[in-house]
């Protein structure tokens, strides 16, 4: 499955960035062959407002089926669910571990936003 994962840096050993809208990087890969990955720098990180919307637009344009992150705010949630992109929360330290946990079925699929607007790392 083609998925995007929010990351602190553009490599598989980078820490998983727990925020969706304002993460530093998106790592795009096929979950069955994670070593062939591409990276997108998240320009929404410095957006004045609507970071979740801008980040979602990047993800939609990248053509992924699912996203792995830590926290999704209300606008990010609306945007991604309208686009039919599944949102997962995975407890993992690095990108590599996040993909492994996802493949092992340990990802939690969201049916509502996990965070309030501008919540940073706090969860509802």
């Amino acid at each position, binding site marked *: 499955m083609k998925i995007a994962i929010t990351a602190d840096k553009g490599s598989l050993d980078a820490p998983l960035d727990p925020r969706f809208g304002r993460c530093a990087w998106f790592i795009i890969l096929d979950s069955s062959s994670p070593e062939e990955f591409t990276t997108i720098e998240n320009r929404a990180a410095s957006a004045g*407002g*609507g970071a979740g*919307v801008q980040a979602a*637009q990047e993800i*939609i344009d990248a053509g992924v089926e699912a996203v792995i992150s830590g926290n999704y705010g209300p606008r990010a949630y609306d*945007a991604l669910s309208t*686009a039919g992109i599944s949102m997962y929360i995975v407890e993992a330290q690095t990108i590599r571990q996040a993909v492994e946990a996802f493949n092992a079925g340990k990802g939690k699929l969201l049916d509502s936003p996990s965070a309030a607007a501008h919540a940073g790392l706090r969860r509802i």
Partner: protein
Amino acid sequence: MKITIASGKGGTGKTTVAVNLATLAAGEMDGVAYVDCDVEEPDGHLFVHPQISSEEEAQVPVPVVDEDRCTHCGDCARACRFNALLATKKKVIIFQELCHGCGTCSIVCPEGAISETKRAIGVVRRGQADSMTYLGGVLNVGENMATPLVGRVKENITNDISLAFIDASPGTSCPVIEAVRDTDYVILVTEPTPFGLSDLKLAVEMTRELDIPFGVVINRDMDTTSVLEDYFERENIDILARIPLRRDIAETVSRGNMLLDYNNEIRNIFQSLFELIASKR
């Protein structure tokens, strides 16, 4: 003439100065208005007690997409500087509360699929308090867009008003700029504390950037104000008035009373301030 009362730091006494100055002016001349542009937390009406004669809804433009014409190319979403549009492969979603009404999306759409509709952000109220005109804006609860409402309130300052006192919100961001812009003089109200001075410097910078003459009123004036005096001297800033730090003054204001009615000593402070301002016309 339009005079804006601003501050920098919140709670320094803008409304106290604005309502008392405006009311005193209205007693001395015709065509005076008090204009409450703190649309998120208006409180001038608590002192001035206007009889409201009209309340008009204020609206801002937002886009609406004709999905029959839309090809989902995403140009509108990419052009929007405020991230108010999201283009999925099947439809365009609009985040109305992020929209700043610039119209760029409708201009860039190659199919002409975007047209304009309106949404309400608050109200503009007009009324009278004796011979003084009252104007004020009230932003809807939960609404982000204060700035357009501030502009709308100011648009209601009609030609029959010869002297308007505009009460701005605290800070130096967009709603304050909108209140201060295109006025003739700014009164910056400060308090003699390090925090007050720090925010006053930002307000002075803002007012100078907007190229509007200004003076300062020191509220809660204490004997130990040397930290401010150094700054005022260095920057060559006019001190228009000083209202002393006194518990009884704070008490009467907290009860919603006008300082003009408190005693002659305080009334004279505002009388001198009014005469100083009137000489600037």
